[in-house]
């Protein structure tokens, strides 16, 4: 399948996909480059005299499968970083592990009525409503820019039917500058009476499998926390061919307006994010990590290095920073440096040695695909 496109992107051949390249469309980048970058930009680690292993040997790369190797495990979350260009005045985007762009649909969407965002204790609610210009406009406007960046860009894909997801994916497939796809399955399935894909194992598996058939791009699927038990859903998505899981999407909530005459948000319902959701995210990553053998990218309330270490401990191989970017746009890049320094200070060769340390000891080691574990 898809033979005609394989000719276009040589990076997708079997031989090339074995190489841990930082981005699929530019297989020429040698795998040692991320390591060199970390070495050059961790002055705190270099200055510490008691480091048993020099920071040069800290390897922060993360293999999410299918040749998608991130230079480091700090990603920026979909919806909080636009298309990567908005923050470029104040953030060194090329130092991020990856950028997950704004949710992209087949056709342009104008989104929900305002107000769309409001702060809540320790977090925020948003109901943007997937405002975006549509997949073709996104490709036209941003793909060329992304292709020139060292940082991999993962396009977040949303839809109202399996067909929507597949069509968006087909259009993204083979476009230079697109390193992977993250499925936002927390959308109502119009074909099934508005039931969300994410809360039904069969529907989640169906859309994952359909997208899997449509592309050879690395495929992440974003779990919703608004379910009774994540384990059967995570297992179904993994079995359907996802390369990695992202956990979690926002928690459903509402806020009340100042006059208490109606809910505050224009859409009534919003998604809760920020430090307030971190315990929920930890629980879901913890459960998913013991259920599936594919890598898990954690997201939910990361505001400091300790949060990153917590998520690694419950089995995530990478984390996404979201809401905290609004307060501190430079946080993700700083976390990269701090994580490298932390590993160096502990004498670790890689942050992967920190993955899964808080999981039950009987469970199988969590996946860090493409990586050899030291005994």
């Amino acid at each position, binding site marked *: 399948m898809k033979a005609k496109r394989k000719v276009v992107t040589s990076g997708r051949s079997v031989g090339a996909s074995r190489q841990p390249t930082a981005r699929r469309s530019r297989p020429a980048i040698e795998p040692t480059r991320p390591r060199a970058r970390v070495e050059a930009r961790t002055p705190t680690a270099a200055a510490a005299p008691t480091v048993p292993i020099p920071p040069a040997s800290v390897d922060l790369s993360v293999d999410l499968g299918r040749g998608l190797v991130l230079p480091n495990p700090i990603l920026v979350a979909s919806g909080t970083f636009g298309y990567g260009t908005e923050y470029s005045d104040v953030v060194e985007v090329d130092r991020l592990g990856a950028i997950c762009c704004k949710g992209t649909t087949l056709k342009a969407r104008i989104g929900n009525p*305002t107000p769309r965002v409001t702060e809540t204790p320790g977090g925020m609610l948003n109901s943007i409503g997937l405002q975006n210009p549509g997949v073709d406009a996104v490709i036209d406007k941003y793909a060329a820019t992304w292709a020139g960046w060292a940082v991999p860009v993962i396009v977040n894909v949303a839809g109202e039917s399996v067909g929507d997801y597949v069509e968006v994916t087909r259009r993204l497939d083979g476009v230079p500058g697109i390193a992977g796809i993250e499925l936002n399955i927390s959308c109502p399935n119009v074909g099934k009476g508005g039931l969300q894909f994410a809360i039904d194992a069969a529907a989640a598996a169906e859309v994952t499998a359909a997208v899997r058939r449509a592309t050879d791009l690395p495929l992440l699927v974003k779990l919703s926390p608004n379910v009774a038990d994540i384990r059967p859903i995570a297992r179904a998505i993994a079995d359907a061919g996802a390369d990695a899981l992202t956990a979690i999407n926002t928690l459903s909530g509402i806020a009340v307006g100042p006059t208490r005459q109606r809910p505050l948000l224009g859409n009534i319902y919003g998604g809760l994010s920020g430090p307030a959701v971190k315990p929920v995210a930890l629980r879901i990553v913890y459960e998913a990590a013991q259920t599936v053998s594919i890598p898990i990218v954690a997201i939910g309330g990361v505001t400091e290095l300790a949060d990153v270490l917590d998520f690694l401990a419950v089995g995530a191989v990478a984390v996404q920073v979201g809401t905290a970017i609004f307060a*501190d746009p430079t946080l993700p890049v700083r976390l990269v440096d701090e994580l490298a320094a932390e590993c160096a200070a502990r004498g670790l060769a890689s942050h992967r040695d920190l993955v899964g340390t808080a999981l039950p000891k009987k469970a199988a080691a969590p996946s860090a695909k493409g990586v050899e574990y030291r005994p």
Partner: protein
Amino acid sequence: MRLAAAELVESREILPGQWIQAYHAPDLASGSRAGQFVHVRTGDLSGMVLRRPFSLNTTDAATGIVTIHFRVVGRGTDWFTRLRPGDEVDLLGPLGRPFEVDPRSQHVLLIAGGLGMAGVRMLADEAIRDGRQVTLLFGAASSREVYPSSLLPDEVEYVVATDDGSLGHHGYVTDLLPDYEAWADQAFACGPTGMLAALARLAAGRRQRLGVATLGRKRGGGKQDPPGSTAARRKAFLQVSMEQNMGCAVGACLGCVVMATSGTPQRVCREGPVFAAEELAWEGAWS
């Protein structure tokens, strides 16, 4: 746009619950224009995860001082009032697009409703500096909320309306517009959305009422500036500064949109906060 630490120099409660704070931020003071805003981080990240947007109220390039003007409405603004001189805050800015004054405009009309004063205050300074005549129409609920004239430049003609009639005109500030629409070459407004919508309706019929002739080429014959462009805004009679709950303030999160007549949501933080009144769909945007 850049991130900078700014030291609080002075903090004053100018009206009950309304504060003006002066910060030392030299880059902002010299590199900002009226209508732009800053996004300020509160000191408590775990409890308050969002920055707070404030219009630049005044800037002074010589001293490097910028001021912001706000009302205490919640935990964030309350946190700012408890800052002491010498404390530092993290400012992101300048953000957004400024007011665009037509170089030919001699008579500039500013219209502010309540806290909307914060949005247009700096334009008074700029217009006076550029040798224009400025009239400022200000509306508030009562005399207790009227912005002190001592905080305005002497050159500004200051006209007040109060809802309860306790000072100046008894009624809305929008009632005053017909008296000035012939005098004004351009008008710039900031305030509650209802007030701005009323002004937009009034301004839309101005040319007909005044019998302004369309000189030059007929419609369609000449070059049309695309809506939202700086050139188109500069020609607009009424420009409004919009407010919306804001997340990132750089255009990434799409939280702070207003609907344009074109049917495409416009980001207050990026395409705004200043818009030409005719760019926006004032009613039934998402229905």
